């Protein structure tokens, strides 16, 4: 087994490349297994409103599997670069290509076996734990239906076998194509940048900005998802092209300046020019990974922070009774009150809202035009309230002269000018009501306005509409669990045919299931993105460190001190790390405007909250990223130093 001995030696020699690959491979195996096990073991079979979560699970598995495949190929490419240098030596000594392929195949099989054993072991270990975590996050208090799926284990082993098979295939093809001379010289050429490719630059900007503008312009909620995907595609291509073009321009500019001949610039600029294409590709990759991490984390965090608000929005009171005034209202809300008494439940904070009419409208200057298509974007929902009803419901004594209105909104946003037109009549805002015990089911994705006006005008302009009444109660004392359940069942059965009674409690359970599932998977995705980002950064530095090592040794011999080397290395790392972070922040900004609109449609929660959460996410991420850059910079420096630099201490 001569070949396998060489393979093992190779693994040992390249351990600072292979160990991270092995760790990442095992973790990714474990993550994939955990998700697949949840899908296969059908843990949510008997849980209401959990089918959404199962769909999320499947999507997340798809995403993580895709990332796994891409990453494995990417990382293996780095591995094979450093491996090839040694194998080329064997080849010089007379080993043929078939034998070299054999060595590499043995190496790949060894890593495959190791990652699968460790990964599935980890996966099984953490599978139960993460299922428990997921159930906890969903606030499901029934006994967990967990089991280990043998099928999932087999499927994972098969999936990774296929991935490795393709990796081995690719490596073999590469070796058969390569000639010896290339083996040795593959890293030594400086890419030629005589002319700046302006046309390519313009095209890349156009692609990038088309992506951004798409993200900004789309307002129609139905088109948002496809447009989002298209924008993502354009931005990915645009980022790669822009990074490649941008680095040419920047380096060309820096090289032309007098300060190029400052030692701190001299080495950095030349080094970056030397491997222009490779470094711009990996910087663009890092940028996109950062963006993915940021978007996942901030959307997840926004939903997490907004979950209570979503509930509050849907449930201004814990018990909501909804009926139409004429026939059933006293009956229904009265019944709920008496039923509560019967079951020893104490209610409080009764509030009522009567909406006499409501219309959707589109704004044109200050003229609101009624519109019937509910899917149109930028809609205003006017809820008309007769002032007599308003006074009765709120115990107030407001008065209005004709063609004047009061209005209020959810967050006291000032959305109306002093004068505006609606139903071809000009209205004057008397006042915006700010301290209202807000009690309404607002329509998501629209600007909801509550308009109080005189009976006469209400009848004149909105005469053909029905009156809806919302009653709301909070619960002072829920009594026992059983009593509360009886109360809910009793009220609900009476409501049938008379209107609706709904309980925040029930909704809360469903919401928790969906949100908990979403948060869990978002968190998992974020961890995977983060892991991959860190590894790509590490591999980039490692590759640069390896290719720079000999150069720094020579420079040290000519008289560059170790501390100087360290300074230059750190500077290079700082500069090249800054670009991906800045661009991913820009990407996030545009992604955010689109996602924010999407989120607004799912939930009309406070947009300021999302902005704050996203900014905090960005800040935290920047710190983590800086630490990562610093650490990978250290790897780079230690590689260069690697006791070859002249720092022999003892005489």
């Amino acid at each position, binding site marked *: 087994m001569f070949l396998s001995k060489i393979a093992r030696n190779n693994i040992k020699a390249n351990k600072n490349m292979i160990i991270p690959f092995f760790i990442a491979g095992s973790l990714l195996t474990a993550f994939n297994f955990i998700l697949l096990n949840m899908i296969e073991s059908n843990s949510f079979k008997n849980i209401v409103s959990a089918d959404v979560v199962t769909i999320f699970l499947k999507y997340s598995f798809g995403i993580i599997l895709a990332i796994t495949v891409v990453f494995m190929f990417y990382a293996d490419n780095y591995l094979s670069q450093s491996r090839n240098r040694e194998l080329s030596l064997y080849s010089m000594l007379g080993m043929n290509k078939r034998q070299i392929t054999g060595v590499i195949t043995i190496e790949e099989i060894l890593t495959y076996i190791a990652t699968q054993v460790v990964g599935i072991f980890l996966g099984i270990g953490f599978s139960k734990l993460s299922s428990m975590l997921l159930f906890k996050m969903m606030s499901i208090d029934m006994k967990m239906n967990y089991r280990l799926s043998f099928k999932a284990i087999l499927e994972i082993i098969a999936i990774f076998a296929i991935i490795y098979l393709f990796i081995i295939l690719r490596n073999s093809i590469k070796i058969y194509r390569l000639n010896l001379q290339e083996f040795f*010289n593959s890293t*030594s*050429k*400086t890419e030629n940048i005589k002319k700046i490719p302006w046309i390519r630059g313009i095209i890349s900007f156009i692609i990038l900005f088309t992506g951004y503008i798409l993200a900004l312009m789309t307002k129609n909620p139905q088109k948002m998802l496809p447009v989002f995907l298209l924008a993502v595609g354009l931005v990915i291509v645009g980022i790669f092209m822009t990074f490649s073009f941008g680095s040419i321009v920047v380096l060309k500019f820096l090289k032309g300046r007098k300060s190029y*001949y*400052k*030692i701190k610039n*001299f*080495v950095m600029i*030349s*080094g970056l*020019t*030397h491997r222009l294409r490779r470094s711009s590709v990996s910087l663009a990759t890092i940028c996109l990974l950062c963006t993915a991490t940021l978007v996942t984390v901030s959307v997840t965090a926004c939903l997490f922070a907004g979950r209570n608000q979503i509930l509050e929005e849907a449930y201004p009171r814990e018990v909501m009774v909804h009926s139409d005034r004429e026939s059933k209202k006293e009956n229904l809300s009265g019944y709920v009150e008496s039923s509560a008494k019967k079951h020893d439940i104490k209610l409080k904070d009764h509030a009522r809202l009567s909406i006499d009419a409501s219309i959707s409208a589109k704004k044109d200057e200050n003229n609101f035009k009624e519109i019937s298509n509910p899917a149109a974007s930028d809609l205003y929902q006017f809820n008309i309230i007769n002032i007599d009803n308003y006074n009765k419901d709120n115990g107030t004594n407001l008065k209005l002269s004709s063609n004047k209105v009061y209005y209020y909104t959810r967050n006291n946003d000032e959305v109306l000018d002093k004068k505006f037109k609606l139903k071809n009549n000009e209205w004057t805002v008397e006042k915006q009501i700010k301290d209202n015990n807000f009690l309404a089911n607002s329509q998501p994705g629209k600007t909801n306005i509550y308009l109080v006006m005189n009976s006469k005008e209400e009848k004149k302009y909105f005469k053909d509409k029905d009156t809806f009444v919302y009653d709301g109660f909070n619960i002072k004392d829920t009594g026992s669990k059983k009593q509360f359940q009886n109360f809910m069942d009793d009220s609900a059965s009476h409501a049938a045919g008379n209107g609706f009674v709904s309980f925040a409690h029930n909704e809360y359970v469903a919401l928790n299931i969906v949100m908990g599932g979403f948060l869990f998977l978002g968190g998992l995705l974020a961890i995977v993105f983060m892991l991959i980002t860190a590894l790509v950064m590490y591999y980039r530095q490692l590759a640069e460190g390896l290719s720079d090592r000999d*150069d720094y040794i*020579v*420079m*040290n*011999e*000519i*008289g*560059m*001190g*170790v*501390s*100087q080397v360290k300074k230059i290395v750190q500077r290079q790392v700082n500069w090249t790390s800054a670009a991906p972070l800045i661009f991913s922040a820009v990407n996030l900004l545009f992604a955010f405007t689109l996602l924010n609109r999407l989120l607004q449609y799912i939930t009309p929660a406070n947009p300021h909250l999302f902005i704050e959460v996203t900014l905090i996410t960005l800040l935290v991420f920047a710190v983590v990223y800086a630490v990562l850059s610093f650490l990978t910079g250290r790897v780079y420096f230690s590689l260069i130093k690697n006791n070859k630099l*002249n*720092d*022999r201490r*003892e*005489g």
Partner: protein
Amino acid sequence: MSKLEIKSVSKTYGKVENQSSYVLKNINFTVEEGEYISIMGESGSGKTTLLNLLATLDKPTKGSIQLGDQSVDQMNDSQSADFRRDNLGFIFQKFNLLNIFTCRDNILLPIVLAKKNVEDYTAKLNDLSRKLGLEDLLEKYPYQLSGGQQQRVAAARALINSPELILADEPTGALDSSTSEKLLDILQDFNNSGQTILMVTHSAIAASHSNRVLFIKDGTIFNQIYRGDMSNEEFYTKIVEASTLLNE
């Protein structure tokens, strides 16, 4: 005062300090200002080791090395890096050019390292590249050059800073006879205008360009011969004679 003073220098790589483990044993010699010295000896005799000590790339186990008024063996890392930068020029057996730089930038590297103004050296650079025949190669990268061309670029880099001392380790080792003859002539020219040079070589022809030849055997200076008034050819015959003596 002599330029370079090597006093009872010994060197061992191992920890065990028995007599046989010494690569260099009690080396003593001095180099005067403007001298051109060759060091010869068979493979493994310790020539490169000695050169590394002088270059502050390594430290002697015993003894002292003095360049001008500076004690070379007492320096710490950053002092020795600065010292190399400010005082020494290197021409190594492997050319040690950096592929990330063009030849121009490779030659200017010592200037940039010393934080001097590059523009002040334009004239010097032009002069050197004319003498070394590098005018058309300056914008190329080292991997685009032949071995001899690379060696000349390395020589230009060693000379640009007008160093106190040039250290060369088999500078002609990889060159054909006519190219090495050119390089040796150039070195001799510089020596004639006052440049101090210390060169390790296997070639008697190369050594015949210098003023003095030291022979090293088993880590000690076995013999040395001076040129005196001899021509290159006469000195060459003398060196060959001395070499055969060395091998007995």
